[in-house]
């Protein structure tokens, strides 16, 4: 395997380029071969290089002709439906990556909201610092949680067995009213504004970093370039609201 990551750009050095070509061409042919064998399908590859007058092919000249003939026999639309060049291929991959990214971001936000909820529950986090959309979502999450709790209470009352039960060693539980740690949170909801100089316009991702040490920020807020005091220069946002790509990247 390669020792270092190769930059995806035309290799200027002639001998390096030729060496890379030889290796990768060999690897590519091997991959076509494997694909054909593993899946029992027809395929062909044609490579024109400046190093040879004749193209390098897989499986062989006759094989290529056969596959191409099969290809051309198909209706035009079928031929072009899954036809790509470099540009369209990379665009496809970008679209797919974008979808995955959006999904992961949403998943992370939901997870983060749960953390925020638990923090606010015990007063470790302040609701006052949250912005409207996050507050709304938090409210929704709390509602949903309450619903789930009620449902569980009902099923317990009906005598449905489940893994519940008092565990020994839980100190805060019993004196019949809201005692223990939980009480504290009622008093601590309205806390000081501007913890650590947080400006209200930041994503809730700041929250977790705020809760942890500032030094932890390095581990968490990587790609998105956030953190206290950072502006939104790094946050991707382009003309297309569905695409996560910074406009200012290519002025």
């Amino acid at each position: 395997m390669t020792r270092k990551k190769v930059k995806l750009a035309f290799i200027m050095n002639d001998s390096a380029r030729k060496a890379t070509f030889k290796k990768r061409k060999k690897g590519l042919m091997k991959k076509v071969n494997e694909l054909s064998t593993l899946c029992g399908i027809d395929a062909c590859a044609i490579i024109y290089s400046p190093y040879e007058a004749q193209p390098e092919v897989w499986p062989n000249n006759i094989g290529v002709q056969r596959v191409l003939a099969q290809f051309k026999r198909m209706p035009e639309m079928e031929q072009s439906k899954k036809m790509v060049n470099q540009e369209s291929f990379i665009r496809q991959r970008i679209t797919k990556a974008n979808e995955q990214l959006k999904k992961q971001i949403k998943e992370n936000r939901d997870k983060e909201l749960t953390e925020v909820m638990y923090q606010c529950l015990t007063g470790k986090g302040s609701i006052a610092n949250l912005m409207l959309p996050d507050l709304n979502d938090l409210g929704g999450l709390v509602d949903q949680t309450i619903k789930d709790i009620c449902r569980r209470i009902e099923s317990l009352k009906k005598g449905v067995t489940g893994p519940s039960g008092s565990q020994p060693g839980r100190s805060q539980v019993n004196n019949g009213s809201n005692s223990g740690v939980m009480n504290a949170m009622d008093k601590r909801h309205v806390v000081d504004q501007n913890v650590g100089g947080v400006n209200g316009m930041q994503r809730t991702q700041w929250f977790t970093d705020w809760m942890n040490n500032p030094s932890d920020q390095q581990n968490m807020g990587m790609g998105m370039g956030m953190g206290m005091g950072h502006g939104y220069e790094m946050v991707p946002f382009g003309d297309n609201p569905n695409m996560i790509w910074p406009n200012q990247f290519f002025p």
Partner: protein
Amino acid sequence: MSKKPSLGRQKIKIAKIQIKNHLQVTFSKRRSGLFKKASELCTLCGVEIAIVVFSPAGKVFSFGHPEVESVTDRFLARKSNVNSSNLHLVESHQIASVPELNLQLMYMVNELEAEKKRSEALDQMRKDGQSQFWWEAPIEDLSLHELQQLKDSMEELKKSVDIHVNNIIGGSDRAPIILSSTGDSCVDNYIWLCP
């Protein structure tokens, strides 16, 4: 420890796959990987390539640089030299955008990596919370008394949230408009975050 998303790299025998589902999945992944490698070869070495592949279902996939047709025509003709001016036209249009697209893709892949790491960190936080505080444990694990306590606390929390929401809205119904009136690009991030 989060469980592994896939089996990872495993050595397989190069013979036709027997299980249809595996075959289809393998085809899909390998075809994509093959095109990726071809695309890289083109970028790195500036060569012309065409790959044509038939799927198990009989559909045809093809990759070509600069275009599938130009390369296959060139191969099939093989007598005269291809009209190079046409090629250059197509090529120069593509060449202009491909490096930028590659950068964009790389950026996106890095972002995805970062979000995945963040996801793991959040999972760990949840796990830590669950083991440290009884009220953070899954609902199924709580006793009736604990559930009732938790419910009361949650309801208090909800009240506080509602109070703050009302404070922000300030009694007017401008709430949805608040986000867009500043014209700040920061605002757009919220629209993005809260679809």
